[in-house]
C-alpha cells in the first residue's frame, strides 16, 4: 500500500492551490508605493570602446527621474565571481572586473551601458532611445579557438590573454594517462560540441529595489534561487551594505534551472538606484532582454579519447575541452567546466587512468554559467557518446560494454578525486531493459521500416554528484562560500511548526515535501507544518537551491533541527510524566513512558514549553525553537540508465522521439510524485538540447537566436509520455535521509540517449555516420543521411 502521508507518500502539492488560482506572489507581482521603473540601454555591438554617453536630451524627456551611466558606479564594487580555479601551473585564473554598468568598453551584445529611471516603463524606454552613445566598434572575439590564437583581440585589455585558465585534472596523472593511452589495444576518439543553451525559465528575471531613508534599510525583491547568497555577494562585494541593513526577498519564483543562482548587475543597480533616487525602482526583463542578459549554459568543444585493452576493459580516458566563459565571469562560471565536470569523468565505470584538460576562454558573448546539470551533462555526454562509438568500432553490444566496465564495489574512489558511496548500476540497467521493453525493439524497428522510417535505440548511463558539498573540500577547490544549509524549526505553543529553510523552492515543491519529513519524524499531520523560505529577514541563513541539493543538504538540516526539537520535547515530557528522559518514546505525536500506558500528547508538551508552570526550569529554558546547520560529509551520487527510441524520416531528416525511459537511483524518496515530475522536466530539457535548442552567435558576435521565434523551445508535441522508475534505491550512506537528489538527472541523462538513438537509426539505414552535433535538427540529420 502506498503511504498517504509522511516520507514516501505522493502528497499533493499545497503550493498548487495558489498557483492554480492566480494568487501566487511572483516578483513582478510586487509593486511598492511610489515605485519608478528602469529600462537598460544595452549594447547592440559585441565589442566596442565606449566614448561619450550623452544623456542630455534623454534626461529632458517626460517622466524621466534620473539616468545612470558607468560613471555613476565608479567606486562601486565589481560584480564578483564566487569561485576561483587554480590552473595546472598553480596560478590563479585570470579574473576580470565586471562593472554594474559598462565602463570604458562594451563586451557583449546586451552589456548595459546606461539605465533610465522614469515614472513608467514606457517613458523609461522612450528616453533610453534618446541617449546618444559613441562606440568605436572593435573586432569581436566569438570563436574560442580564434580567441586563444596569438595576437587575438583581447576581451579584457588588462588581462594577458583571453585564457581564463588552463586546468588539468589531476595534473599529476597527465603523463601516466598519456602512457596508458599509448599502450592501449584500442583507442576511440570523438570530437564533439556541447552547444550553448539558454535556460529559459518561463518567468523572466525581475528586481525591485527599495530603500528606507528613515532606517537606512535596503530591500531587494528578486527572482533568485538563493537570496542569502545574493545578500552576501551584493552587500559585501558590490555595494558595501552590511547584511543587517540588507534584506533580500525571493518570493514565488517561476523556474530557475541555474540561471537564477547568480548575482546580476540589474539587482545591484535597482538596490543602488533606489537609494539614489529615494524611491523604489523596478526592473522587469522582457524575454528578448533575457536572451542577452541571463547567463547562458554549456558551450563546450571537446575531444575525448577512450582507451581499451584487448578484452574491452576501459584503461584510460583523456579529454581536452574548450569552455566558453563569455565576456565576464558569472558567479559560479569557473567551477562548471572544471570541478563540476572533471570530477564526473569516470562516469559509472572503473577506468583507472583519467586526465581532464579544460581551457576556459573569454569571448564577446553573454557570460556562461551553470544550467541544469552544470558540467555533469557535458561529462556524461562525452563519455556516453564515446562508449557508444567504441562499441560500434569493436563490434560489441553497447549495453554489454557498459556492464562489463561498471563499478560494482562501493565505496569506490575514482581517479578524479571523488568517492562514490553507494550505487548499483546493473540494477538500474536491468530496470531500464524492463521498462523500456528493449526486447521488443527489433519488432518495433521492423514496423517502422515497413513505414519507410528508420528506427534507432540509444541507451546510456549517467552518474552525477549532488548535494554540494562539504564546505572544507569546496574551499580547497576554490569556492569562496560555505556550502552547508541551515534550518530553524519553531514550534508554536499549540503544537504547529514553522520550518525556516535556506533552500529555495522555485518549482520543486518544498512546501509539500519538507513537511512530509517533519511529519514523519514527529508523527503529526503534514498540515501542522509550514515552510518559510526565500526571505533573508525570516530565514537565518541559507545557501539556496541548485545542484539538486535541497533535500540532501537542506532536508538534512531540517532533520537535525527537528531532532533537537524532539530531544528537548522529550525532556519536557519526562518532567510532565515524572519519568526518566531515557524512557520517553515519541510515536504518532505522543510521548509515552516505555513499557507503560502513561503518555502525554505533542500539544501538551509544546504548550508546557510556552506556559512553563509545570516545567523543568532548572534544567532547560522555556520555548521550543532550534536551529541546525548541516554541512555534508560527501557529495551524493544519483545514477541511472536511460533509453530512447527514435524514428527518423529519411526524406526530411526529422527525428521523432517514440519512447523515452529512465531508471534512476535517487536513494530514498520522500515524494514519488514530485520526483517523477523532476525527471520528466529534466528529460524535456534534455530532449530540447538534443533536438531543438541552440543559442547561436554570428561571427560579429550578434546573437541570432534572441527570441522564441529563433530559439526552438520544446513544445508539448515534441515529446512523448516518459516511462520513469526510481525503485532501484541504494540509499546515500552519509545523510540522515539516505537521499541523493533528483533535480538534474533528467537533463544529464537524456541527451546522449537521444543522440545514440539517432546514430543507431542512421546506421541501421546503412549510413556510416558516427556523430552529429546537437541539436539534431532535420537539416543536420538530412545532411548526414545524404552526405
Amino acid at each position, binding site marked *: 500500500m502506498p503511504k498517504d502521508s509522511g516520507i514516501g507518500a505522493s502528497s499533493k502539492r499545497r503550493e498548487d492551490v495558489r498557483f492554480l*488560482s492566480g494568487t501566487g506572489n511572483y516578483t513582478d507581482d510586487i509593486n511598492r508605493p511610489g515605485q519608478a521603473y528602469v529600462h537598460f540601454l544595452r549594447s547592440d555591438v559585441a565589442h566596442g570602446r565606449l566614448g561619450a554617453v550623452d544623456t542630455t536630451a534623454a534626461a529632458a524627456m517626460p517622466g524621466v527621474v534620473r539616468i545612470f551611466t558607468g560613471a555613476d558606479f565608479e567606486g562601486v564594487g565589481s560584480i564578483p565571481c564566487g569561485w576561483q580555479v587554480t590552473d595546472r601551473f598553480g596560478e590563479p585564473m585570470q579574473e576580470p572586473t565586471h562593472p554594474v554598468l559598462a565602463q570604458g568598453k562594451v563586451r557583449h551584445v546586451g552589456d548595459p551601458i546606461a539605465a533610465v529611471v522614469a515614472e513608467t516603463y514606457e517613458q523609461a524606454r522612450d528616453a533610453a532611445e534618446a541617449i546618444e552613445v559613441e562606440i568605436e566598434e572593435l573586432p569581436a572575439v566569438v570563436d574560442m579557438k580564434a580567441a586563444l590564437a596569438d595576437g587575438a583581440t583581447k576581451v579584457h585589455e588588462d588581462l594577458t590573454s583571453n585564457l581564463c585558465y588552463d586546468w588539468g585534472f589531476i595534473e599529476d596523472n597527465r603523463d601516466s594517462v598519456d602512457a596508458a593511452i599509448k599502450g592501449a589495444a584500442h583507442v576511440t576518439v570523438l570530437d564533439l560540441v556541447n552547444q550553448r543553451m539558454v535556460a529559459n525559465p518561463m518567468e523572466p528575471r525581475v528586481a525591485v529595489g527599495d530603500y528606507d531613508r528613515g532606517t537606512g534599510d535596503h530591500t531587494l525583491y528578486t527572482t533568485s534561487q538563493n537570496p542569502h547568497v545574493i545578500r552576501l555577494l551584493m552587500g559585501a562585494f558590490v555595494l558595501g551594505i552590511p547584511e543587517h541593513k540588507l534584506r533580500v526577498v525571493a518570493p514565488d519564483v*517561476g*523556474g530557475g534551472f541555474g540561471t537564477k543562482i547568480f548575482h546580476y548587475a540589474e539587482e545591484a543597480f535597482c538596490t543602488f538606484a533606489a537609494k539614489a533616487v529615494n524611491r523604489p525602482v523596478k526592473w522587469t526583463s522582457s524575454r528578448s532582454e533575457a536572451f542577452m542578459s541571463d547567463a547562458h549554459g554549456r558551450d563546450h568543444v571537446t575531444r575525448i579519447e577512450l582507451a581499451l585493452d584487448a578484452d574491452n576493459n576501459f584503461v584510460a580516458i583523456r579529454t581536452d575541452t574548450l569552455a566558453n566563459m563569455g565576456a565576464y565571469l558569472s558567479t559560479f562560471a569557473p567551477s562548471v567546466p572544471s570541478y563540476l565536470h572533471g570530477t564526473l569523468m569516470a562516469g559509472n565505470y572503473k577506468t583507472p587512468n583519467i586526465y581532464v584538460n579544460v581551457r576556459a576562454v573569454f569571448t564577446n558573448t553573454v557570460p556562461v554559467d551553470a544550467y541544469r546539470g552544470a558540467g555533469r551533462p557535458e561529462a556524461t555526454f562525452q563519455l556516453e557518446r564515446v562508449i557508444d562509438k567504441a562499441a560500434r568500432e569493436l563490434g560489441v553490444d553497447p549495453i554489454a560494454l557498459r556492464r562489463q566496465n561498471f563499478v560494482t564495489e562501493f565505496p569506490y574512489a575514482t581517479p578524479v578525486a571523488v568517492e562514490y558511496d553507494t550505487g548499483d548500476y546493473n540494477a538500474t540497467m536491468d530496470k531500464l531493459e524492463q521498462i523500456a521493453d528493449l526486447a521488443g525493439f527489433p519488432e518495433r524497428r521492423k514496423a517502422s521500416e515497413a513505414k519507410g522510417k528508420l528506427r534507432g535505440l540509444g541507451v546510456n548511463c549517467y552518474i552525477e554528484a549532488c548535494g554540494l558539498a562539504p564546505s572544507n573540500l569546496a574551499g580547497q577547490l576554490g569556492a569562496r562560500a560555505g556550502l552547508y544549509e541551515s534550518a530553524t524549526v519553531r514550534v508554536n505553543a499549540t503544537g504547529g511548526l514553522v520550518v525556516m529553510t535556506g533552500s529555495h523552492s522555485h518549482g520543486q515543491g518544498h512546501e509539500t515535501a519538507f513537511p512530509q519529513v517533519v511529519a514523519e519524524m514527529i508523527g503529526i499531520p503534514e498540515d501542522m507544518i509550514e515552510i518559510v523560505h526565500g526571505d533573508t529577514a525570516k530565514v537565518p541563513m541559507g545557501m539556496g537551491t541548485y545542484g539538486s541539493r535541497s533535500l540532501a543538504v537542506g532536508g538534512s538540516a531540517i532533520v537535525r533541527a527537528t531532532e533537537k526539537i524532539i530531544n528537548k520535547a522529550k525532556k519536557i515530557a519526562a518532567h510532565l510524566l515524572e519519568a526518566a528522559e531515557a524512557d520517553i518514546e515519541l510515536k504518532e505525536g505522543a510521548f509515552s513512558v516505555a513499557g507503560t500506558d502513561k503518555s502525554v500528547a505533542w500539544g501538551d508538551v509544546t504548550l508546557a514549553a510556552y506556559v512553563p508552570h509545570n516545567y523543568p526550569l532548572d534544567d532547560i529554558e522555556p520555548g521550543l525553537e532550534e536551529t541546525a546547520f548541516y554541512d555534508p560529509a560527501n557529495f551524493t551520487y544519483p545514477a541511472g540508465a536511460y533509453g530512447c527510441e527514435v524514428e527518423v524520416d529519411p526524406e526530411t531528416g526529422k527525428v521523432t522521439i517514440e519512447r523515452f525511459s529512465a531508471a534512476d537511483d535517487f536513494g530514498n524518496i520522500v515524494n514519488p510524485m514530485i520526483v517523477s*515530475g523532476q525527471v*520528466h522536466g529534466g528529460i524535456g530539457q534534455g530532449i530540447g538540447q538534443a533536438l531543438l535548442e541552440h543559442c547561436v552567435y554570428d561571427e560579429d558576435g550578434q546573437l541570432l537566436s534572441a527570441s*522564441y521565434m529563433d530559439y526552438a*523551445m520544446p513544445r508539448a508535441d515534441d*515529446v512523448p*509520455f516518459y516511462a520513469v522508475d526510481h525503485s532501484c534505491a541504494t540509499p546515500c550512506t552519509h545523510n540522515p535521509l539516505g537521499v541523493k537528489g533528483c533535480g538534474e538527472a*533528467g537533463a544529464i541523462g537524456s541527451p546522449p540517449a537521444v543522440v545514440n538513438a539517432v546514430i543507431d537509426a542512421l546506421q541501421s539505414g546503412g549510413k556510416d555516420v558516427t556523430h552529429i552535433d546537437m541539436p539534431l535538427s532535420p537539416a543536420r540529420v538530412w545532411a548526414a543521411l545524404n552526405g
Partner: protein
Amino acid sequence: MRIELAVNGIECVGDVEGRTLLSGFLRDGLGLTGTHVGCDTSQCGACVVHVDGVAVKSCTMFALEADGCSVETIEGQAAADGTLNAIQQAFQDHHGLQCGFCTPGMVMSAAALLKENPEPTEAEVRAYLEGNLCRCTGYHNIVRAILAASGQDVSAIAAE
C-alpha cells in the same frame, strides 16, 4: 482612453493608453497578476485569457480592443468559495505544474480545448498546446491532467 469591460463577471472601467496591452491592463490596471507575461513575441502562452469565450493571448491584444467585452482570467476559474474547478483540480491531482508560471495560461488553454473538443486524444492535446510553453514539467503531467479533466482514465499512463 476609457474602456468598460466585464472581467470575471465584474464590470470594470479603465483608463488606458492606445499602446496598453490587455495583459498589462489586467496586471497593472486591475491587479489581476495571475495572468503572466513570459515573452514578447506571442510564443509562450503564459498570458492566455478568454475574451468573449475565446482563448486569446492577452499580450497580443490592446486593452482598447477589449472594450465592451467579457474577459475571463485564471482568477475567475475557481468557485466563489475557492473550490478549484475540474481542470484546476486535475492539474493538482496529476502534478501538472511545478513553478506555476505557465500554469494560468495552461489552464485557460485547456478550458478552451475541452470546450471545443470535450474528449481529445493525447495527440490533440499536444497539438492544441502548441502555443503554450512550459519549462518545468516536460509536458507529461500537463497532458495527463488535461486528459483526466476530460473524464478519461489516465491510470495506464505512468505516474511515478
